[in-house]
């Protein structure tokens, strides 16, 4: 509590003192018959000033201590001190009020946490449960593959795949909110990351007859395998959706000093300049048509968020009308630093 604030708090007291003093001076000056020696007058004035000075010091100190004590009381969540410890009745009343508010808040928080944990448990279980009929549907479809018309099989396959993708999105969305409980930074080879991300997309490459080429060396990066794999699979999912029939997708790894970059490039319409800045935003979908799957505007947003949490850099580039490139950059020193800082 600064002195200025103290004065603001006590302004009425000091205004009163000032007017009382002014009144006394006026009476002294106006009444010529008043018989008081000037030495006595200055004696009174000095005494009065000393008293005032002492009052200001004591009152300011007192006030500051009160404020400090009350602040500490609030900061300790009113748990250790009881409201009765305060001397002044007004402080006691306020302390009781604060303590009530805090206990109310604590209750609310623990209730919310329990509820969130229950919901989390429910969703996790639900994800496991729903995967069972999905795997059954997949197996049924697979066993009938040679008997079904190709178009029917492909459409069903694509639909089931998009259900699976949506479920994975639920999984990763709830995981990002609990990032700190569930990540494991280790050395992972880029080849392994790419392999993990590509799994499951084989059918789209074969339906649309997309050419795939994996270029560059195999480097080790520091990251969480699963999360980075998800980011890459989003890039691939996107590339597959935007790629024209018989287009080509190039996945390249490159190392530049301390930085390793995995990029996914697809040819096709590309992304217009006005769209490219928005591409990682939530709910953003391009206005242009795409085939091979519906856009949710969520995959890239989630990837960006995961990338930020892991301290990796995501970038989208495009030459409009020709190709689009998404890249994920791991930087050696920064990554560990960022993560340990979390």
């Amino acid at each position: 509590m600064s002195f200025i604030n103290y004065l603001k708090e006590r302004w009425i007291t000091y205004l009163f003192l000032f007017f009382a003093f002014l009144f006394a001076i006026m009476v002294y000056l106006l009444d010529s018959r008043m018989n008081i020696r000037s030495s006595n007058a200055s004696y009174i004035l000095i005494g009065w000033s000393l008293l005032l000075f002492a009052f200001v010091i004591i009152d300011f100190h007192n006030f500051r201590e009160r404020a400090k004590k009350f602040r500490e009381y609030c900061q300790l969540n009113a748990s250790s001190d009881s409201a009765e410890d305060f001397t002044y009745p007004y402080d006691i009343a306020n302390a009781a009020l604060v303590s009530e508010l805090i206990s109310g808040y604590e209750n609310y928080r623990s209730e919310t946490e329990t509820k969130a944990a229950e919901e989390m448990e429910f969703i996790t279980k639900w994800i496991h449960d729903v995967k069972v009929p999905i795997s059954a549907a997949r197996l049924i479809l697979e066993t009938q593959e040679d008997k079904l018309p190709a178009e029917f099989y492909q459409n069903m396959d694509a639909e089931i795949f998009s259900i699976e993708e949506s479920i994975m999105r639920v999984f990763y969305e709830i995981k990002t909110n609990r990032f700190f409980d569930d990540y494991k930074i280790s050395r992972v080879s880029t080849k392994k990351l790419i392999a993990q991300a590509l799994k499951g997309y084989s059918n789209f490459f074969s339906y649309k007859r997309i050419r795939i080429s994996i270029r560059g060396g195999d480097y080790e990066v520091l990251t969480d395998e699963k999360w980075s794999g998800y980011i890459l699979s989003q890039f691939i999912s996107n590339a597959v959706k935007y790629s024209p029939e018989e287009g080509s997708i190039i996945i390249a790894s490159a190392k530049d000093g301390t930085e390793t970059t995995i990029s996914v490039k697809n040819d096709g319409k590309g992304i217009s300049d006005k769209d490219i800045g928005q591409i990682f935003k939530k709910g953003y979908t391009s206005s242009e048509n795409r085939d091979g799957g519906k856009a949710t505007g969520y995959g890239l947003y989630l990837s960006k968020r995961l990338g930020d949490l892991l301290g990796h850099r995501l970038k989208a580039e495009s030459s409009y009308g020709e190709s689009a490139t998404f890249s994920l950059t791991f930087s050696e020193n920064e990554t560990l630093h960022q993560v340990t800082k979390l």
Partner: protein
Amino acid sequence: MYKILIVEDDRIISSIMEEHLVKWGYGTCRVQEFSDVIAEFAAFDPHVVLLDINLPYYDGFYWCAKIRELSNVPIVFISSRDTDGDKIRAITQGGDDYIEKPFSMDLLTAKISAILRRAYSFSDQTINVMQHKDMVLNVERLQVFSGDKETELTKNECRILSLLIRNQGNLVTRNRLIKALWDDESFVDDNTLTVNINRLRRKLDEIGLEEYIKTIKGEGYRLT
């Protein structure tokens, strides 16, 4: 004949697995009574156990530990649980492999034959060998024999040929071939598959196995 015990409580999934595995020449048994898996395990005495984690009564981890008390039989977990924690637990409790649902039957059969090879090939050399008419494929050594002639295959060619042989002259679609190769982490596209098939054909021609692989236009391939 190798025997496989299927511990999976979803009837549709377990029946499809059974049907497939039987078609591919394995003996199977589906557990009916989940309160006592051990009894059925002991009665059937399988070479491989396929084990789900979410089961009625006790979970898969429990049964894995119980089976391990009795036997060193290979155990493959098949589960919809996909966290690292579950996979690590499965392997540390004595599982040999972990397949995540949803999975493809081609992947499952590939994993089963790999596991059988690892576990039993010392005592049984025929496990690495597949045959179709005059053609004999050794999947371990990546070689094809016909009479006294032989040729070497690449890993991809071997995968393609073994899938064709396993399907005994039935159509195998291009999708399925590509998917099987992707499951094995070699990422081939449509063109590369064609190249691989042509090269495989040439190699088979060289050892006198002409026109073994027939193209079904626009769909896939089958052995004749």
